[in-house]
């Protein structure tokens, strides 16, 4: 699992790639949170999942955790480009009601 980010003006985009499971999530949680802290002025945060090949419920926990972090700064978060299998698990678990897909 790799996590990179890009800042365009007041938009913070996270690019996740690889397999988002328990093993992977623990290694990128900190980086994601520090990045949100450093960009707490952002107008919104995007999670680009186009390169996530696999995701299980740990991934859901990871995304909801970052959503809560953003919420503390009142920054809305969105999900972009999930593949069909990520889309399935995100829909089932109701993540889109908190972090809409755009």
């Amino acid at each position, binding site marked *: 699992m790799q996590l990179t980010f890009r800042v365009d003006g007041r938009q913070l985009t996270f690019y996740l790639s690889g*397999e988002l*499971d*328990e*093993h992977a*999530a*623990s290694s990128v*949680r900190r980086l994601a949170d520090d990045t949100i802290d450093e960009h707490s002025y952002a107008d919104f945060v995007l999670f680009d999942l186009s390169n996530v090949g*696999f*995701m*299980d*419920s*740990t991934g*859901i*926990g*990871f995304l*909801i*955790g970052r959503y809560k972090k953003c919420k503390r700064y009142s920054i809305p978060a969105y999900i972009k480009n999930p593949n*069909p*299998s990520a889309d*399935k*698990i995100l829909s*089932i*678990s109701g993540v889109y009601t908190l972090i809409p897909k755009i």
Partner: protein
Amino acid sequence: MQNYMKLELAALSENESFARSAVAAFALPLSPSFSDLSDIKTAVSEAVTNCIVHAYKGGEGRIVIECRIEKAPRGGILHIVITDYGCGIEDVEEAMTPFFTTLENDERSGMGFTVMQTFSTFFKVESELGKGTRVIMQKAVGM
């Protein structure tokens, strides 16, 4: 002869990826669709992760994965049994409720069992406190 396999793994999170890939690879002779494969991988990943984080709470332990193929005229049924010898579950019905988790502070969403249930054709959990837990799943593939 019916095809089967048995895999025993240390309860380490670095084995999660191997475990789900191994089961998916075992199912390949049934000509699964891409979506079947991804359902199988996700369900196995959920069960194996639960053994690591709940049954053994990050400590030492072993996980046994048994698979069997039941052939049908077209495709077949993949039987998966995942066993741990950890702490067991006090109330299985409660544990299977969507959003129920005993590890709220660890960013658990409590959706693992719901995902396993949704992604498999048949699903059952057997557990005994102090003895361990067994997750039994079947997935109809290529039928």
